[in-house]
């Protein structure tokens, strides 16, 4: 059993309530922070912890906090990004549903560190019932003196407000989220200015993911240095992985980033192996936007070394032979799944979610969706595969926000590693409608070049 920092108490009976959460040691970090630490000291602890943003980008959280501008007389805001929408990702929901006070506790400490008196949780609109759970927890925290005026006699005032989105993946991008919180369309802003300088209502703002803010609680309790001892290299602490697809035990798992991908998939503690006794074909380990890898490159790097569940190891080999940790949305495909079809659903997703501001993304995602549908239906031409490659190249890096890249990468990786499956759809159009291309050589041991 690995270390559990976030989910250790998540299944204690009644942990959703303040009484049980408090009895189990909850809100100790608020007491420690507000009574014995300065805001600057808290930022230092988070820096020391090596905590990286858990929403997908992996940017060091303490550094992000230290960027916040502090102009005289201008209020600052902390915004919690609970707009969890990356296909394959359902970890923030799990935290908020099961142990909502952990997020509230982390938010109070972070608000104090950043000087935010009005903090907002922006939650995806579909998670409507979770809004009630969070508001209940906020009400209990306020009733017990952890929110409101002069918290624990520290002189610090704080309120947390829950704002529901209304169905838009793009609002997970921090500047689009800010626009949405201002009551506008979720169109990302051009940076700079960065939110830390001019964010919500043009005031200095920090936007952090649910899991990132929850991790502040153990960091303050145990100290940044102790937290940094867990994990490996720049992958410190624990990470929540939401596992789904063709596995025996889909669900949310907390890992300490030292386990191998193979152990994560096949061990009974985690995914419990591939469902229905089938074989592993491919995996998208960090949410729909990260590169898909065939089984052989997933379990071992191109150098033939074991691949581990952490930021560095998953990205070993770059995009040529590696992938990314992303949001931890771990999607597993068994031998009966079609990579062309799966890639088509992602392309359709990104076309649906493109905000339409930038031409390469607005037009390109539509083209990719049409081409992939055509290929999947056995109506494609061989040149369509090259055209797809060309389009994704023209989207990547040419848009205001990372949605363009997120739409391009899955298509690029699918063609890079599964080109024969795409070609088979062109050369065997009728057969492709009746059966699947299958496992092919994707699970064969990889050839390791000598020297």
């Amino acid at each position, binding site marked *: 059993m690995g270390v559990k920092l976030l989910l250790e108490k998540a299944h204690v009976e009644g942990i959703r309530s303040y009484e049980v959460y408090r009895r189990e040691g909850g809100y100790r970090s608020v007491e420690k922070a507000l009574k014995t630490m300065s805001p600057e000291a808290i930022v230092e602890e988070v820096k020391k912890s090596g905590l990286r943003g858990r929403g997908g980008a992996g940017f060091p959280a303490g550094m992000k906090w230290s960027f916040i501008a502090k102009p005289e007389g201008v209020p600052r805001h902390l915004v919690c990004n609970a707009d969890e929408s990356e296909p394959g990702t359902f970890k923030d*929901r799990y935290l908020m549903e099961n142990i909502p006070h952990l997020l509230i506790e982390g938010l109070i400490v972070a608000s104090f560190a950043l000087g935010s008196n009005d903090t907002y949780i922006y939650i995806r609109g579909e998670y409507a019932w979770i809004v009630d759970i969070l508001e209940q927890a906020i009400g209990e925290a306020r009733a017990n003196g952890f929110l409101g005026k002069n918290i624990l006699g520290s002189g610090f005032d704080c309120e947390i407000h829950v704002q529901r989105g*209304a169905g838009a993946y793009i609002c997970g991008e921090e500047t689009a989220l800010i626009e949405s919180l*201002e009551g506008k369309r979720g169109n990302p802003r051009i940076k700079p200015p960065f939110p830390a300088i001019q964010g919500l209502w043009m005031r200095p703002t920090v936007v952090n993911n649910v899991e990132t803010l929850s991790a502040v609680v153990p960091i303050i309790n145990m100290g940044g240095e102790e937290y940094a001892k867990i994990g490996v290299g720049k992958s410190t602490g624990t990470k929540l992985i939401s596992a*789904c697809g063709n596995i025996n035990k889909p669900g949310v798992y907390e890992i300490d980033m030292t386990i191998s991908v193979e152990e994560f998939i096949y061990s009974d503690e985690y995914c419990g192996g591939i469902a229905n006794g089938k074989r592993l074909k491919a995996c998208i380990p960090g949410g729909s936007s990260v590169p898909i890898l065939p089984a052989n490159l997933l379990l071992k790097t191109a150098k033939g070394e074991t691949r581990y569940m952490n930021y560095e190891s998953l990205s070993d080999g770059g995009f040529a032979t590696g992938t990314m940790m992303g949001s931890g949305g771990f999607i597993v495909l068994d031998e009966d799944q079609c990579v062309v079809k799966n890639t088509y659903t992602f392309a359709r997703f990104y076309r649906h979610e493109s905000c339409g501001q930038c031409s390469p993304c607005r037009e390109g995602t539509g083209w990719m969706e049409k081409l992939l549908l055509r290929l999947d239906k056995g109506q494609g031409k061989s040149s369509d595969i090259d055209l797809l490659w060309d389009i994704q190249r023209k989207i990547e890096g040419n848009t205001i926000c990372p949605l363009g890249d997120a739409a391009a990468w899955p298509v690029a990786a699918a063609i890079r590693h599964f080109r024969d499956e795409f070609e088979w759809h062109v050369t065997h159009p009728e057969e492709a409608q009746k059966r699947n291309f299958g496992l092919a050589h994707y699970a064969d041991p990889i050839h390791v070049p000598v020297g």
Partner: protein
Amino acid sequence: MSKFSETQLAEVKRLVARYPEGKQKSALLPVLHLAQDSFGGWLSTETMDYVAELLNITPIEVYEVATFYSMYNLKPVGKYLFEVCQTGPCMLRGSDDIVAYIGEKLGIKPGETTADGLFTLKTVECLGACGYAPMMQLGKHYREHLTKEKVDAIIAECTKNAAANN
């Protein structure tokens, strides 16, 4: 034209109070949710104009937002809206079959509403329930691990509730 009740107006006031003075536009998304829930599950132009007036913003500011976000319905929908996820992780667990089965059972295609106005079938993109696939949203809650038997039970439950409310 429908207007908010006193209780609902108090809720609008509570929402607006969460933002700084003059930033009442920030309440637009929550107020549109309230309007949709209160006025038959969709937003008519009249409703949007009413919301604009309440928040002291221009109607175009409301239309811009209402047309951008997928949860706002701009035309009438059935009493029970089945929003079935069809993105990768759900597809891998058989969401295509669930969509087809619901369509067959209700005699409608995605995007359509049954003649009695009870059911609308809609396909949607990822709702963050990938580990509990296939799934759909029905009202405020998710229905997960869907099977044909579960779909039968959900349709029977809705039909029964509708009859009880009439």
